[in-house]
């Protein structure tokens, strides 16, 4: 059974379908790439899946149950967590607080405990704090824990974004162009992180613009153009697919 499945997923903006009858099926443990030229509906598809916008038609199934039209925070509770195309952080807070806020779903402390600072509350808080440190060490921001988020470099922003998402303990992580704005070194580091996540059992849906990056890391790739799926397969199949080449590079004259 696929962990995520969409059938006939459609979103119209005015008379234009931004996503058009999209059937997508992601198996558990995959790193699925979702690619396509600018404006092909990748981000809209991701917004539809994670509940940020409502589908005009079609169904999103997650772990076997219909979750179409559910609220983002309810989906997060089910383990479906996303990041954003434009880096989205709690910019005014420290790196530590960013991930602490991200731990919302795994924060077992009670209101009464917080008000009285009970022993239980202090123990649970220390555990959360430990997990925050672990996560930050994992994404390579261990040294930056006290920095204010907006002072981080572009690469560090992206790593922090992933740490925040991981604090919600996702079963499936949807990343929207995480490599945008990164230099090749940072991008490679990020891709390594994603591979490690997969080994830890997180299924990844990676929206990306950059072909080369995605063919290196994905198990399967789905290609969108004008909101519709035009190809799907292994990276090798996709790279050689004439429709994909046309979509990306345009038609060769006379061909």
């Amino acid at each position, binding site marked *: 059974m696929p962990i995520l499945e969409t059938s006939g997923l459609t979103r119209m903006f005015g008379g234009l379908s931004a996503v058009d009858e999209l059937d997508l099926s992601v198996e558990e443990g995959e790193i699925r790439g979702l690619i396509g030229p600018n404006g092909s509906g990748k981000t809209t598809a991701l917004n539809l899946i994670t509940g940020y916008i409502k589908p005009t038609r079609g169904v999103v199934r997650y772990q076997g149950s219909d979750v179409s039209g559910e609220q983002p925070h309810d989906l997060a509770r089910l383990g479906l967590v996303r990041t*954003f195309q434009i880096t989205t952080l709690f910019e005014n807070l420290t790196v530590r607080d960013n991930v602490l806020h991200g731990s919302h779903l795994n924060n077992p402390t009670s*209101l009464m405990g*917080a*008000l009285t600072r009970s022993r239980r509350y202090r123990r649970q808080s220390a555990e959360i704090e430990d997990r925050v440190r672990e996560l930050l060490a994992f994404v390579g921001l261990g040294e930056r824990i006290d920095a204010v988020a907006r002072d981080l470099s572009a690469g560090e922003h992206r790593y922090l974004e992933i740490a925040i998402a991981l604090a919600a303990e996702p079963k499936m992580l949807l990343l929207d162009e995480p490599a945008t704005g990164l230099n090749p070194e940072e991008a490679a580091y990020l891709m390594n992180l994603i591979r490690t996540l997969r080994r830890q059992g997180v299924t990844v849906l990676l929206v990306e613009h950059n072909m080369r990056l995605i063919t290196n890391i994905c198990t399967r790739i789905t290609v969108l153009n004008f909101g519709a799926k035009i190809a799907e397969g292994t990276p090798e199949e996709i790279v050689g697919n004439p429709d994909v080449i046309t979509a990306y590079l345009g038609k060769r004259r006379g061909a």
Partner: protein
Amino acid sequence: MRLRIPPGWWLGGLVLLVVVLVPLFLFTNTYNRGLLVLIVIYAIAGLSLDYIMGEMGQFSFGHAAFWGFGAYVSAKLALDLGISPWIGFLAAPAAAGLVGLLIGYIALRRTRNLELAIVTLGFGVLAWTVALRWRPVTGGPSGLRQVPPPSLFGWEIRSELAYFYFALLLLLGIVFLLSRLRTSRFGRGVRSIHENEDLAKSIGVAATKYYVLAFSFACALVGFSGALYAHHFRFVNPNLLGLDYMFIFLIVVLVGGTGTLWGPVMGAAIFVLVSEWLRALQEYRFVIFGVVLLLVVLFMPIGVFPALQKIARRIRGRNDDKESGAPMGEHALEADKAG
């Protein structure tokens, strides 16, 4: 480590010491001591409005309506049903919180920021009109008089000084509660929505639910302040729900500084004392306050309290603003940004 006192508390404690001792020596007559009570009541109302402004990053223009509503509820219970003010002190925030829940649910499901300000303004004007017109219940324009003071073991807390210390104790309890609420799961949830609502949702914060609850909590708190007012000044009238008080609370928060807890306390003291010095000017006071507010917003946009904190930090030779301790730090940082 656990005993480390956040920097804000040092300054707060100092202010407090002054606040506790000064009345005994400087505020010697009944009238002046009444001002002290007013400071505390405004401080609680300011803290409540600041919960919406500083923690939620939103704005309610109908906050005075909840204040006046709390005052009416407690006064009405005591006058009509002979219910003890102590029960009133619980019933007023409960009623204000409940109405806040309803208004918040209506307003926050759809609106934020400016739209929310307009929706709450509409509600506030509506509530004021009801208080003015619904004579049989509210007493109309003249309101309700002879509201009884609370009594403790048969002794009525009538004296200004006694009521001041009583209210001050409650104020301290509220500041303490609020400071701990911030680092609670709920407080962090609210904070995360303030910082970035889309991101907060993506990590599982039920944004609208949290905002409605936070709004209701702030309404309950301001309703409590209103009840304190009713049982001390012993009257209520529709003005309590109106824009005059709304602006007073706004001045208290903005002059004191948002998101700092002690800011509104200081703002309340500044407002009451300065407006007392300007009393001879009658209504023109508010012209001066308008100018003062303008100057504060232009030259000290973070408010007086955060500005003092900054200066204190500099004196201690710690120019590193980022090192201001965990729970207070977050907010100080935002204040710095605003400056």
